[in-house]
């Protein structure tokens, strides 16, 4: 195993771990705000939860981007040909 592969593995781990921090905090805040809104207005729960799901998917995409970058680094690394 040369140093480029070692660096790739470390870089993939760093990308996923640090890339997950922001979306995790953001999803927590979004769910908390939606819970608050549902508690105040239970009759709007359907609309709120639908919008929440779509919003969570949007936020989650950021973490998924990091995952894809990590996969590219691990499995399709252009420097490891």
């Amino acid at each position, binding site marked *: 195993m040369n140093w480029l592969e070692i660096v790739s593995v470390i870089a993939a781990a760093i990308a996923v771990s640090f890339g997950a921090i922001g979306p995790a905090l953001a999803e927590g805040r979004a769910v908390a705000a939606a819970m608050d809104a549902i508690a105040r207005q239970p009759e709007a729960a359907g609309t709120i939860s*639908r919008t929440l*799901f*779509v919003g969570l998917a*949007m936020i*989650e*995409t950021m973490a*998924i*981007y990091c995952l894809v970058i990590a996969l590219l680094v*691990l*499995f399709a690394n252009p420097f490891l040909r």
Partner: protein
Amino acid sequence: MRSPLVVETVFTVGPVPITEPVLVTWGLIAVVALLAAAAKRSLSLRPSPAQAALEVVVSIVQSHITETMRVASAPYVALIGTLFIFILLANWSSAIPGIEPPTAYIETDAALALIVFLAVIFYGIRVRGPLAYLRTFAEPTLLMVPLNIIETFTRTFSLIVRLFGNVMSGMFIVGIVLSLAGLLVPIPLMALELLIGAVQAYIFAVLAMVFIGHAVGEPGKPKRSQGIMT
């Protein structure tokens, strides 16, 4: 470990390689088509339990379309409902032993997102007309034209990556836990993966609705944008 970005060829038809996700996709298409044909043959005014269940699904899709897009749902039910049912069955096909969900490979997701991309343009032009649809790209101001054009492509890309990342990572996690911990341990994770598959199918369908609804616009006030945008 096998790369998730590479698919093996099962056999080739002339110059066209047929891969395993393609075979699973064909199987799913056949199953859905046969079930739909069987359900269509026995339609009656006094519905059987199966017909009542299917009618519930169709009416849920219709009510979601009218609530999200705020237009009549009739032209979109077929597209959105088919996308939802196909992605749901594709994600849940991982429950069958020996079958990997075709949505865990990026090519299937790219094809699905391409359908949405083309449907947005098609419905936008059909409802608004070509010039009025092009004008929506300059909607708040003329300065937004490059951003709106870029957004059209990035949201398609994010549709691809979202579905691929979720399904593929679920499959990967089950595989890793199975190799580390052994038999029966990843069962809760597989249940979680079923839930994630359902949520992702729902999200894909809702996002397709939102994008098409944005392109179509409200009939009363076509200048106002509505709904959620990426």
